[in-house]
């Protein structure tokens, strides 16, 4: 799905989290929103997912105005920074949650739900953990379960908030490849937020460098590296 961000701004009280920003994300792209904390990248991601509403501006999905769509109507697979797994449910029930939450008429039968959950557990290469609880998983496993849970609703896009932030360096490297693979298999338009320039440069097709609620530069990793558009970008990706 193609995503168009048209002059989106967001203010919290008197502070501006986003000055009007515009961004066009081609269908099937893997995009990184890169910037230091306070740059507005998470706010932009949450606006896309419908968890936050823009003060002004529009969001278009495949050319259709999606600005007023509720969080449920957006059908965005969202992976939270701390994964936000339902702690009182097994991994299986976590992944099945979105399917079970559908209105009765659209809800797949139990056996079909089980089949899909099993398939997703295979996709994240953790076929045997369905009956465990989140507290019994490692950080990397939790992240993958969160990803599977988001994919279960057959989302129109995948939004990830610092998906590797809580992991140690070695696991982080492995899961980067995992996300790349899942993106390539599903072909979903994917947007992830990170403050780690290595991660953005290595993983994304398109990097959006943000600072103080503004977009500093949009480009392919090699272009940004070769021609930083501002002193900030040069400094940030150099560090």
């Amino acid at each position, binding site marked *: 799905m193609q995503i168009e961000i048209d002059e989106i701004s967001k203010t919290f009280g008197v502070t501006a989290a986003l000055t009007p920003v515009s961004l066009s994300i081609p269908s099937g792209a893997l995009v990184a929103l890169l910037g230091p904390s306070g740059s507005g990248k998470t706010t932009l991601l949450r606006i896309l997912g419908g*968890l936050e509403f823009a003060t002004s501006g529009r969001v278009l999905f495949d050319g259709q105005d999606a600005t007023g769509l509720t*969080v449920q109507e957006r059908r965005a697979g969202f992976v939270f920074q701390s994964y*936000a797994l339902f702690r009182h449910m097994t991994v299986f029930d976590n992944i099945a*949650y979105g399917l079970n939450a559908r209105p009765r008429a659209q809800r797949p039968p139990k056996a079909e739900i089980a089949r899909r959950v099993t398939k997703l557990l295979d996709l994240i290469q953790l076929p045997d953990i369905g009956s465990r609880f989140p507290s019994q998983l490692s950080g990397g496993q939790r992240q993958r379960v969160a990803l599977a849970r988001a994919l279960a609703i057959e989302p129109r896009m995948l939004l990830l908030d610092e998906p590797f932030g809580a992991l140690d360096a070695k696991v982080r490297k492995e899961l980067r490849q995992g996300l790349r693979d899942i993106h390539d298999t599903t072909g979903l338009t994917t947007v992830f937020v990170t403050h780690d320039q290595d991660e953005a440069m290595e993983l994304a097709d398109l990097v959006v460098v943000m600072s103080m609620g503004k977009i500093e530069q949009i480009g392919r990793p090699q272009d940004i590296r070769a021609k930083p558009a501002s002193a900030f970008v040069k400094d940030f990706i150099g560090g």
Partner: protein
Amino acid sequence: MSDTPNIRFRPVTTEPALVQGLVISGVIAVLAVLLFAPLIAVFYEALSKGWFAAVASLADKESLAAIRLTLTVALVSVPLNAVFGVAAAWLITKYDFRGKAFLITLIDLPFSVSPVVAGLCIVLTFGANTVVGGWLVDAGYPIVFALPGIILASMFVTFPFVARELIPVMIEQGRAEEEAALTLGASGWRVFFTVTLPNIRWALLYGVLLCNARAMGEFGAVAVVSGKIRGQTATMPITIEMLYNEYLSVAAFTLAGVLALLAFVTLGLKTFLEIRHADALAATRRH
């Protein structure tokens, strides 16, 4: 390591045995004076004329009415306060709005206001010579000196328990799980029943148990609004006081014993559930 010098290490947070012993015996001494001795005295007095006299005093019409009234009050006010408490905690922890700090203060108000004052407020608002109260009396639904007033007073006094228990838990758990459920397509009610409620069920249970204990034991506020009509508006604590003032000590202490036993049931239930669900408790606390 056979040549390790004979040094005894102890964890830095542990005190020497002497200090430990002193602290523990100090606590036990205080508990004995404040808790065990009075409890034993209650049961001793209740049974001083034998089991038969104790049971006979309970079978008295007024005592039975008092027990029934107290249970009714708890049965009505505790569920209502549970619902209000959850709603208040939900509001405070999941939303940002103007006047939030004021709302938190309001919830705590019953803790800082003397129950007698609370009872007086209800009399002054709903008494027979006020506009509202007079109208309700004419309509056949008196509030003061009747069951509704007693329930109102008990609810006022026990209002903070559930909310106070829930707010810290809900703040600690944050909004992320609810947000995740929303992005997965769940409606607000579904999020509440499948995510929020299971996550707060232990805190809610504690709140309800505390609320229940206090609702059954409340004296001051109820004394003012009830009018202490024997066999009609006298709850257990009030009946106990009246019996005691009339030197009917067996009856008074037996009823007090029953009230204490009701508290034990509450405590026992809490402990039972804690042991039974120790794993689930640990899982929800540490994530």
